[in-house]
Structures are given as structure tokens and as C-alpha cells.
């Protein structure tokens, strides 16, 4: 279990090179390119899970997320990639990336390592300066069949899927910053298509993870670090706390 403190923002495409430069200096670390493929599952509606006392939220159906790293060699079709790669990605498709063959590939082999994640809605409160969310995550070591049959046995079905590609900055203090783009992956019959969600820009996330939600000292320290970063970047990148409802992974009870 991890308690994640986070702040978010967004920048337009043109600001990317300067932002990378700025964060490289601030973090004194080079940007690291990353790409993740995420599959979101929801509880199988045919199981007719009783919505007991749904108003008091006693039975809550939560989505789960499986994610795996897309190998950079696949992403760039063998080419050596660095953070400049992101500068060319403003379309619905990533030119060098064959999403169809990638998905067929991970569906057909069982060697992909998946991280299994369930997260709570971020903590409520009017005076919060940052989002504080409980996240449970673990790596699936092995499953008897494919990962989809495993998740099926747990009683979950496909909801939607997306890919995020971006760069990551590791600060010495423990803060991590990400600049990334998000693509929705739509699978229709045999066709796979991608749709760019973050049009004309990048998402920015600054976060600090604390292993125990009871470790108040580390939480305070993390909050201070993030708020300091917010102050340092103010008037350039305005980091903000998002609406907690947007980070809620629960199914809408009114469905």
C-alpha cells in the first residue's frame, strides 16, 4: 500500500522542450523516457453484484488497473529513443509504433509482467493543497493461464485501455515528475486504433509516495517538498490539486 501525494498541471506542445530543460536542471537528473500500456477492468456486470446500501457506499465496485511497460524498442520500431521522441507525437497514431502487433503480441505470450493496481478516491477536505490517494499495487508473479483469464476468474471484465508515453524526472528529494501524453486504445473486432486524449499538450504530474499512510512525518515532508516545487515553478507551470471526483475509480452507482 502506498499513499501518493500529487499535483497536476498541463502544458502545450510548444512548451515541452523548455519544460524538459527546466526540470532537468531542477531535478539535476536526465529525463527518462517511459511508456505504459494500461488495461482497466471493471466488475463483471453479469455477476449482478448486489448494490447493498449503495447510498452509504457500503458495497463499492472499484475498477482495477493492469499496466505494463511498453518496450522502447517496440515504441520506436527499433530506433534508439530519447526525450526528443515526444516532440513528434501530436497525432492519434504513433508512427513508429505498431499498436496492433504489440497487443497481439502481449495477448499471445504470458511473459509480460503486469502490475495490478487498485486505488481509493483521494482524501476529501476543503483546505487540501495536494491530492492524497491510497493506492494498492503489486506485481502479478504468475498466473495459471493468460492474464486475461486470471482477471476473468477474479470476476472482472474489460472496461477500457490506454497508453501513456512521456518522460520522468527523479528528484533527489524523492519527488517524481512526469510529463506525458495519453492515448485511448480502441479495439474493434480485429482493428486496433489509437486516439490522442491529451490534444496539443502534455499532462504534468508531480508526486511523492509514502509507504505507510500512518507515517505522518514522511507525509508532511512530502507535502512540503511538493509545495516548495509548486512555489519554485509558479508563474511558469501552475501545479494544482485536481478535483478528487475525477480520480475516483469506483463505478457509478447510479448505472
Amino acid at each position, binding site marked *: 500500500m502506498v499513499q501518493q501525494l500529487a499535483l497536476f498541471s498541463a502544458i502545450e506542445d510548444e512548451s515541452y522542450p523548455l519544460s524538459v530543460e527546466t526540470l532537468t536542471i531542477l531535478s539535476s537528473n536526465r529525463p527518462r523516457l517511459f511508456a505504459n500500456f494500461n488495461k482497466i477492468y471493471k466488475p463483471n456486470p453479469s455477476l449482478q453484484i448486489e448494490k447493498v446500501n449503495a447510498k452509504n457506499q457500503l458495497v463499492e465496485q472499484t475498477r482495477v488497473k493492469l499496466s505494463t511497460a511498453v518496450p522502447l524498442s517496440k515504441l520506436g520500431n527499433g530506433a534508439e529513443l530519447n526525450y526528443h521522441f515526444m516532440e513528434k507525437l501530436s497525432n492519434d497514431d504513433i508512427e513508429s509504433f505498431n499498436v496492433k502487433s504489440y497487443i497481439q503480441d502481449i495477448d499471445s505470450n504470458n511473459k509480460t509482467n503486469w502490475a495490478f493496481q487498485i486505488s481509493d478516491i483521494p482524501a476529501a477536505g476543503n483546505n487540501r493543497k495536494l491530492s492524497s490517494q491510497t493506492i494498492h499495487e503489486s506485481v502479478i508473479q504468475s498466473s495459471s493461464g493468460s492474464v486475461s483469464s486470471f482477471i476473468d476468474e477474479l470476476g472482472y471484465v474489460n472496461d477500457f485501455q490506454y497508453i501513456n508515453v512521456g518522460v520522468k524526472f527523479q528528484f533527489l528529494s524523492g519527488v517524481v515528475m512526469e510529463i506525458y501524453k495519453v492515448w485511448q486504445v480502441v479495439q474493434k473486432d480485429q482493428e486496433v486504433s489509437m486516439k490522442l486524449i491529451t490534444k496539443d499538450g502534455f499532462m504534468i504530474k508531480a508526486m511523492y509516495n509514502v509507504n505507510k499512510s500512518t507515517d505522518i512525518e514522511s507525509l508532511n515532508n512530502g507535502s512540503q517538498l511538493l509545495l516548495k516545487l509548486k512555489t519554485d515553478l509558479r508563474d511558469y507551470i501552475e501545479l494544482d490539486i485536481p478535483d478528487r471526483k475525477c480520480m475516483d475509480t469506483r463505478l*457509478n452507482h447510479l448505472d
Partner: protein
Amino acid sequence: MTDTPSNTDPLQSAIAPDFSSVPTQALDALRMKFSQLTASLSKIRDEMSRAELPQWYTLQAQLTVTLSQLSSLTNTLDHYEETLDATVAYPLPSFPTTAHEGLITTLMRKKNIPEVDEWIKDAKETNGLDVDSLSDAEIKKLINKDKDITSWATKCLLDERAKHSYTGLYTTKERQTESIDDRDNLYTSSVSNVKTSRPFSVDKVLKFVNQGESY
């Protein structure tokens, strides 16, 4: 029976207070300086006790203001020294001493409060001078010597600082020996006014990532 002035109770009779000899000008000047100083001192204290420390330059500016207010106060005290020394404060007979004993002892107190005594003692100990055994002239001489050392140290610091270049791309040594044109040295730190803008709503993207709601 007629009342003679000697029979009247001094506590009951209304004695018209005579303010003519009160050094209002001096007291009012001091009151203003004191209130300025206490205001800025309490501001510093508030800022220091906050969880988030203020920027160092804010603190420094605040401190400079406070120090100049302090020196202005000492100047005023110095200016009115004679008047104030010759002034004696006393309570009027009509003052309700029993009801407000605490107030009058506070107002009339001449002795320093223990805290202040502690500060004075501390200052005397840290200056390294044996105030009791030295004569005034000797102390003055020592203070002057201290001032000389201070100005010598300041001069040294300025000399040393002049030997280095704190802006630009070259050291002072390089600029002198390699005769570099000043225009090549045009790197100055600047405040950037570049600002990013959000091309989409962060909340909507988060909503998609967590709930799959496309827009």
C-alpha cells in the same frame, strides 16, 4: 462647620492636574518610534513562527527596516536625554491604587524586569570587556579599536570581492589576461516571463484515465 482646605480628603477632591510641565513632545515622539518598532518586531516574529519560512530577501529587508527603526529610536532617546532624565513620573492622588495595584506597579516600575536584566548581563559578558574594572576612557578606546578592526575587515572584503567576476561567462583573471571583449561576456541571469498554458482540462484527462469517460 465650614470646610477648610486642610480638612478635605485629598482622595476625594478634584485636583486639576497640571500638564504644563509634561514633556509631551518628547514622549509623543518616543511613543511613535516605539510603536513602529514593536509592530515590525512582531511581524518578524510572526513570519519566523510560520511553518513555511519566508524568502531570505524578504527577511533581510524586514531586518533592515527594523534596524533603522531601532537606530532612529536610540537617536530620539539620545536627543531628549536631558528632558527625560529630569522628568519624574508619579501617580495622582485620585488613582485607585487598591483596585489597580498591578497596573500602577507596572506603570511606575523603574527597575528592569528580570528578562531585560538577563539580556544586559548577557551583552556585558559577550563583549569580553571587564566593564567594572575599566574606566570610561579605556572602554571608549577599546570600542574605537573595535570600530577600526571592523572597517579594516569591510575594506578587505570589498578588495577581495573586486578581484572576482560574479556575472558573465569568464573569470576576472581570464578577462584581464586574455583581453576578452566585454560584449562576449554578455551572459546575465535574467528573470524569465515565459508562461505555459493548459491546452486541455486536467480534470477531464484524469477522468478518462480513471473512469474511461472520453470526451
